[in-house]
């Protein structure tokens, strides 16, 4: 398995964890009597920072662990080749495109909540949710392209 593929899987897992955290917190707020703006804003901040932080830390840790594992396997302390070649870049671009399309659909659905008379907090909560789901869709699309071929 290539380092790029492992990176995508790590990203996918971290995005799924953030999604679960976000949904559980939203559900709890709803159970406690609806969305409260101060709590919702804090949750958004936590979720956005968590996604950025997990992406960066996940990438760094993946490279470190992979280097150690390969050094143990080969018995040499050589510098590991973490090449991102043209195929990786193409797959990444296609994944980003899938993410954008998913996010656009999410934005449209969020806007529709106004039509059915929901408050703006619901719309923005759905926006954040569609952002996380778009990241997950992009990751899955990349995994699919790595397996099936470009």
């Amino acid at each position, binding site marked *: 398995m290539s380092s790029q593929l492992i990176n995508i899987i790590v990203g996918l897992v971290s995005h799924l964890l953030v999604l679960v955290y976000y949904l559980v917190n939203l559900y709890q707020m709803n159970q406690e009597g609806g969305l409260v703006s101060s709590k919702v804003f804090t949750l958004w901040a936590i979720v956005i920072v968590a996604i950025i932080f997990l992406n960066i830390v996940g990438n760094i840790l993946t490279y470190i662990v992979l280097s150690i594992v390969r050094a143990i396997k080969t018995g040499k302390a050589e510098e590991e080749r973490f090449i991102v070649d043209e195929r*990786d870049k193409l797959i990444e671009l296609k994944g980003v495109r899938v993410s954008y399309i998913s996010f656009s659909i999410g934005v449209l659905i969020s806007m529709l909540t106004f039509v059915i008379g929901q408050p703006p907090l619901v719309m923005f909560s759905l926006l954040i949710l569609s952002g996380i789901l778009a990241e997950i869709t992009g990751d899955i699309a990349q995994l699919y392209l790595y397996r099936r071929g470009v």
Partner: protein
Amino acid sequence: MEKCQVRNNIRKFRFFQNEMTQEQLAEKVGVTRQTIIAIESAKYAPSLELAFRIALVFGVPLEEVFSYTSEDEPA
């Protein structure tokens, strides 16, 4: 638009180069082994530059390594 395919003889040329491994070829052309595997199995059509680099490693013209076949034509 009709579907087209870039075919290749990389496996054959690797064999003629003293059974050069995919890893060795990947290192020489500056890509990952996974990309060489994808090209060999016709799952990925390389860029023109990469195709030239692969042909250069084998020391043969580009058209001997890669060929272009449309789906309706016989291979």
